């Protein structure tokens, strides 16, 4: 019977092969050789989040090349392997398993989206494998604490909520606030944290409107906001949503002050919304200065980036390149502190002694451009960055709001 002869032959081959299998012995700390350390990077190179991944990879590679150009760490050269997770859950898990089991990297430097990062955390905790997440702001990354998981540039939802509440209360001096957020997970998780913080300041939430990410028509939500007429609005969604939302709100004649989530802190919003974005506030966590600025460290960084990548991938450098660059230095600092023959535990201990640290301002990585916000890790608290920067759109792009009491 043709069908079964096909499978019988496979079964036979399998039985013979299984007798010859000898598991390979892992030699010394995985991923460490005499002259090099292999670091794995999980990143979303394909799928809807490809811009995030491409930008992050460029920034990370820039930092790696700079470190290797200056003699690497503790005499070892840094090798990097990138595994694409396509921005999905199963993609993330496959990428992480490939890094751990096949590429046999020393540790993982994570640049996936919220979806692909949150889904690998249970696997990381089970495998007790060092995972330094730079971008994903999902609460479940650090929810049940594990010594193996660190969170770099990104500010967790609770801190974003606290920060936003402070801006709404003290800067905008609003008494009534409205929410307009998409169905994305990172939006639905920030509101529950923010409402108590607003209540502490005696601010009433008068409106909670929702929309589906990718919607094109907000006339309904705009009219609801107009009738509720809150003093200020907190907006959350993907950058593209922001670009579509702002013109329609402006057209509906909404006068309340608008504050956007950290994800809205992206050049796409002013570019897409055009003049309607003027006066729109958002939170920025990627670096001291906003990307748009030409002077200071940001200016140097951009020229270096241009030199390093004559023809960069489309839409880069972007905010995710900054994150990749700054956080890889923090990761490298952890590696350096792990000493001449590094193990994951030594690196964890090293990272947990990093206090208020920014590459370029420290003693060792003097050549780095100090663009990142300072990172601090402690045993039991692996949230590297709590600070946000308030930015506002002035004639076409964001810029930092200077005199703002943190």
């Amino acid at each position, binding site marked *: 019977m043709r069908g079964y002869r096909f499978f019988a032959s496979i079964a036979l081959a399998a039985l013979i092969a299984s007798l010859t299998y000898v598991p390979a012995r892992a030699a010394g700390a995985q991923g460490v050789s005499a002259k090099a350390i292999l670091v794995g990077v999980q990143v979303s190179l394909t799928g809807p989040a*490809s*811009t995030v991944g491409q930008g992050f990879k460029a920034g990370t590679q820039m930092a790696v090349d700079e470190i290797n150009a200056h003699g690497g760490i503790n005499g070892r050269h840094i090798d990097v392997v990138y595994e694409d997770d396509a921005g999905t859950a199963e993609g993330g898990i496959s990428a992480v398993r490939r890094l751990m089991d096949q590429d046999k990297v020393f540790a993982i430097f994570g640049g996936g989206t919220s979806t692909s990062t949150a889904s690998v955390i249970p696997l990381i905790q089970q495998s007790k494998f060092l995972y330094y997440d730079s971008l994903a702001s999902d609460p479940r990354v650090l929810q049940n604490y594990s010594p193996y998981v660190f969170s770099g540039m990104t500010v967790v939802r609770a801190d974003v909520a606290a920060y936003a509440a402070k801006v709404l209360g003290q800067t905008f001096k609003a008494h009534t606030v409205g929410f307009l957020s998409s*169905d994305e997970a990172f939006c639905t998780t920030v509101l529950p944290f923010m409402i108590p913080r607003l209540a502490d300041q005696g601010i009433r939430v008068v409106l909670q409107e929702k929309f589906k990410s990718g919607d094109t028509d907000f006339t*309904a*939500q705009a009219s609801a906001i107009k009738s509720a007429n809150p003093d200020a609005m907190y907006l959350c969604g993907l950058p593209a949503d922001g670009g579509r939302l702002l013109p329609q709100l402006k057209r509906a004649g909404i006068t309340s002050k608008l504050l956007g989530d950290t994800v809205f802190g992206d050049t796409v919003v002013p570019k897409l919304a055009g003049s309607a974005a003027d006066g729109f506030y958002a939170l920025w966590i990627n670096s001291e200065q906003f990307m748009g600025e030409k002077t200071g460290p940001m200016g140097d960084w951009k020229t270096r980036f241009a030199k390093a990548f004559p023809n960069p991938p*489309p839409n880069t450098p972007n905010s995710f390149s900054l994150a990749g660059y700054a956080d890889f230095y923090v990761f490298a600092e952890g590696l350096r502190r792990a000493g001449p023959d590094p193990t994951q535990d030594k690196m964890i201990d090293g990272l947990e002694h990093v206090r208020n640290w920014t590459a370029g301002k420290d003693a060792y990585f003097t050549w780095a451009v100090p663009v990142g916000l300072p990172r601090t890790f402690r045993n039991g608290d692996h949230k590297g960055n709590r600070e946000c920067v308030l930015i506002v759109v002035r004639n076409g792009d964001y810029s930092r709001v200077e005199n703002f009491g943190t």
Partner: protein
Amino acid sequence: MNLLVGGIAIGAVYALVAIGLTLIFRATGVVNFAQGEMLMAGAYAYVLLTQSGAGPLVQILGPIALGAVIGLVFFFVTRILLRRAPEISIVIGTLAISILMQAAARLKFTDNPMRAVPWLFGDRDVSLGSGTTISINSVTVVVVTMIVFGALYWTFRRTTYGKAMRAVAEDPVRAAITGIPVNRMLALSWSLGGVVAALAGMLLAPITGVYPAMGAGVLFPAFIAAAMGGFESVFGALFGGIILGVVQTYAVVGVGGVARDGITFALLVAVLIWRPQGIFSTVTLRTH
């Protein structure tokens, strides 16, 4: 008030895509799952032309020409290459092309939406009295959709080519016996569908921005609008699109933004089960 206009505007875009679907289905019997990607191609052509500073006429005619060419490519694939394949394989063929087009666009332009300036009039708004303003683009969308519908209605009623296409749609064998070159008519139907899709792309671009998955989002509501016309009547597709746009907008107010898809699906099942041959079409459903 502007709720209604907003609803009509987005409904008009659904209608345009639905008209494209109907044009192609009734002549060729193929449901084009890649109609959204045709729309996306038209939108990208429009944005690139506006950015490259081409004259206003080229900005409009360029995407339309591209739409016509893409329509012919689809005709070539489904009619010549997939000649022997059963109907299901042709439907899956259009799905395959839609993946290819989306993936290619993502590689070239990534997913960051590009900004598109509305036709000719730029970003100005129009006040409708009582203080509410709507974007000039919404007006253009509705006006252009009406013009397209009028033009199609006139061609199919008056011109010989229009009548010939209707004859092929009714029965390719009878049309052939009458002396009508069937393949040329099918190619014309496909490229006309491409043109309408490109037009819809140009009109949707300023509303949503231009990104690879922009077409897919509009495809499902357009299916429903076309189903209301039984995939036979262009008028049914137009009217179906407008109704859907308005109902969705008010549903969002009533029930909340996210229920939009649930409602759209409920409408689809209602239409298909209750009147498979569509509410407006007089002809019984072409048996598959």
